[in-house]
């Protein structure tokens, strides 16, 4: 069973937390209270703060009223009322369309799509409407107050329709932002930034980490900037780039690689669109090697964009081809999940072959 999960059954120590990663906050927080929270609780806190600080903000989607299927919206309806936190009919295009209408009137609409696997009916509203709302109107109108949250990624038993990582589709759409947090503390800060960002944001939450990841999360209102990648582990031999739950796996690979004398630098991209090319470029110019890892299928995955860009910018500094350790080009399988996934050992193998190229 543990091998099927391919990860850790115990509570995870989130990547970066033990390595003194910089936490960017709006206020000095040394003396601020923190609380040990899992991912869904951190997100819940962010939503409470968002609704508290802006009376014209709304949270809605399927089943959010009772707390949501992942408990991210617990307590919101009771506290802020059913006018602001409510269930919607089962219709993703309606959820996002309604959210665009609310946002266009100057409200903040934080909508939930129950699983990223079900976001596609809303794709027209996201791509043709939300992403172009400001541009096509000559800035007379905008729906910047829209934030779309969706759980994404492998969960051990999700199969085709409860495991997808659709971020690449959205990264190809000028006008929206795509944000993916790696941990509870990051999620709270990034979600608040996303909600308050004056552009429509698609926020993918790694569902695997909803309960599994526990971290000290400051209780106050803080934001983590978008489009700023973070070096969560410093190294000199190879740069690894990832996002979301995959960073946990990559960090384990880095630890194993260290035992074999390879010094790995690990970067959390956080925002995929628009992405922080400068941080990755600076790192690769230092290490000369790049490895990207994501759960989504390798062909056309976002790793390809990173690879192409870094190739353009760092060609002469590269000691080896850019490596991508990703999901296979298949629908996300059920019993074959351990074979499909970009596991720690696959990453470790790739690190070694890149370093030994």
């Amino acid at each position, binding site marked *: 069973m543990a091998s099927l999960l391919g990860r850790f059954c115990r509570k995870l120590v989130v990547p970066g937390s033990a390595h003194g990663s910089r936490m960017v906050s709006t206020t000095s927080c040394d003396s601020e209270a923190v609380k040990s929270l899992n991912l869904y609780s951190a997100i819940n806190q962010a939503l409470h703060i968002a609704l508290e600080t802006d009376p*014209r903000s709304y949270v809605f989607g399927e089943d959010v009223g009772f707390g949501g299927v992942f408990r991210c919206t617990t307590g919101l309806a009771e506290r802020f009322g059913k*006018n602001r936190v*409510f269930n*919607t*009919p089962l*219709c993703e*295009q*309606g959820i*996002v*369309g*309604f*959210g*665009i*209408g*609310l*946002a*266009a*009137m*100057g*409200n903040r*609409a934080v909508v939930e799509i129950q699983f990223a696997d079900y976001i596609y*009916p809303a794709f*027209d*509203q996201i791509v*043709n*409407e939300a992403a*172009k*709302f*400001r*541009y*096509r*109107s*000559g*800035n*007379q*109108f*905008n729906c*910047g107050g829209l934030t779309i949250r969706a759980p994404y990624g492998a969960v051990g038993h999700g199969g085709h329709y409860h495991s997808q990582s659709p971020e690449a589709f959205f990264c190809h759409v*000028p*006008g929206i*932002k795509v944000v993916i947090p790696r941990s509870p503390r990051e999620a709270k800060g990034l979600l608040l930034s996303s909600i308050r960002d*004056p*552009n429509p944001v698609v926020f993918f939450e790694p569902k695997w980490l909803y309960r599994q990841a526990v971290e000290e999360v400051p209780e106050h209102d803080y934001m983590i900037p978008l*489009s700023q990648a973070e070096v969560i582990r410093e190294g000199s031999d190879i740069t690894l780039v990832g996002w979301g739950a995959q960073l946990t796996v990559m960090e384990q690979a880095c630890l194993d690689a260290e035992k074999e004398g390879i010094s790995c630098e690990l970067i959390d991209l956080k925002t995929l669109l*628009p992405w922080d*090319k*400068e941080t990755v470029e600076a790192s690769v110019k230092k290490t000369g090697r790049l490895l990207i890892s994501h759960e989504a299928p390798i062909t056309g995955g976002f790793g390809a964009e990173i690879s192409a860009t870094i190739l353009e910018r760092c060609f002469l500094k590269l000691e080896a081809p850019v490596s991508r350790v990703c999901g296979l080009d298949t629908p996300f399988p059920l019993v074959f999940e351990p074979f499909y996934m970009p596991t720690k050992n696959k990453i470790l193998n790739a690190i070694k072959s890149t370093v030994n190229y």
Partner: protein
Amino acid sequence: MAIWFARSRNIVSSLRHNLNLSGILSKRDYSPRPAFTNSQLSSRSVFLDSITSLRHESTAVEKQHDLVQQSDEEDVQELDFPGGKLGYTSEMKFIPESSPKRVPCYRVLDEDGRIISDSDFIPVSEQLAVRMYEQMATLQVMDHIFYEAQRQGRISFFITTVGEEAVNIASAAALSPDDVVLPQYREPGVLLWRGFTLQEFANQCFGNKADHGKGRQMPVHYGSNRYNYFTVSSPIATQLPQAAGVGYSLKMEKKNACAVTFIGDGGTSEGDFHAGLNFAAVMEAPVVFICRNNGWAISTHISEQFRSDGIVVKGQAYGIRSIRVDGNDALAVYSAVRSAREMAVTEQRPVLIEAMTYRVGHHSTSDDSTKYRAADEIQYWKMSRNPVNRFKKWVEDNGWWSEEDESKLRSNARKQLLQAIQASEKWDKPPLTELFSDVYDVKTKNLEEQELGLRELVEKQPQDYPPGFHI
């Protein structure tokens, strides 16, 4: 036994009718209720019991067995299901696919422009009526001149509103300026009514530097935040769920305003139609949905679009109050929209209006509708069912409009339009930097880089690029 049983139903029915004992006579009831014993569940004993009760005219029997007479008229007993109580019936009856009669069309003016006696309608003052007529005529002139401009190659594309002037202007006249309009693309009359100038229309069609949309979209994709008219987008029906959100926002802000959104007959086949109506109904949002049923979605006739009695019957499926109106009758449209708007705002609910009309023009300048419909049909609607002429007759009959007014209006409108077009044509396009702005609220790094790169390229090889753009 079998024969006796087969006849029993007839006996019961005739007894029911002849003796008017519907309250007492019982029928088989197979619902799983603990009060029933096995013998009571058999048809034979039930029938015998009913005969007994008939003889004794005893209501005690009815209570004891807890059986019900079921007919379409009486729901004596009800079943509880999520969603509330329901009567039930043992008669297996399908709701027919259509009503024997189609939903009638509300109209006030006959084809000769005379008010039909005993019509319900909201009276329209001379001032309002004249303004409505002027705008309908102006819209006609605008359509004609811009269409010709496209034919001459001066603008790339155009969509006319010919035949639908009443829907456009009368609906706009019935709204308040605070009502937020989410159009499809055949409702420029609403914008015209609110004050958008002919010059502004022309600027958008030419995509020049004065275009509020900054030249980013094809002609007829107007938008105006000043006049509460959301920018037109080409995808069909996407505005409908957005309208539900807009309406909800107005409700939450307690504004005396509603969302008003337009859609064609074709657009009602889109999933967003279902999404929009359902959300508006569930959220109790003040939204007026106006469907211009003009008979054609490009080359697709309504007989190929749906099998229902048009759109109006779909409203009830969502719990939405609906009306079918003669869309070529300006007074009827005015009354219906005005009433619907009041309902939406005061009762905080959506309303659906199906405006029956006809698309006299082609779908757009990229279409030649004689390829799929009879020229006779087009002529008929253009000449005999013309909404502008019909309203004109009424206005003239009231002594509010003369032929002199007519020729003055049309020649003025024509002149203004030609001037507007000439001016628009001469002006520069928006500066190149507007290619990159407004993708986000602030230009992102990659856009700044791309702008720099493009600028250098254009400076180096200007011959590759069209003139009229400032770098």
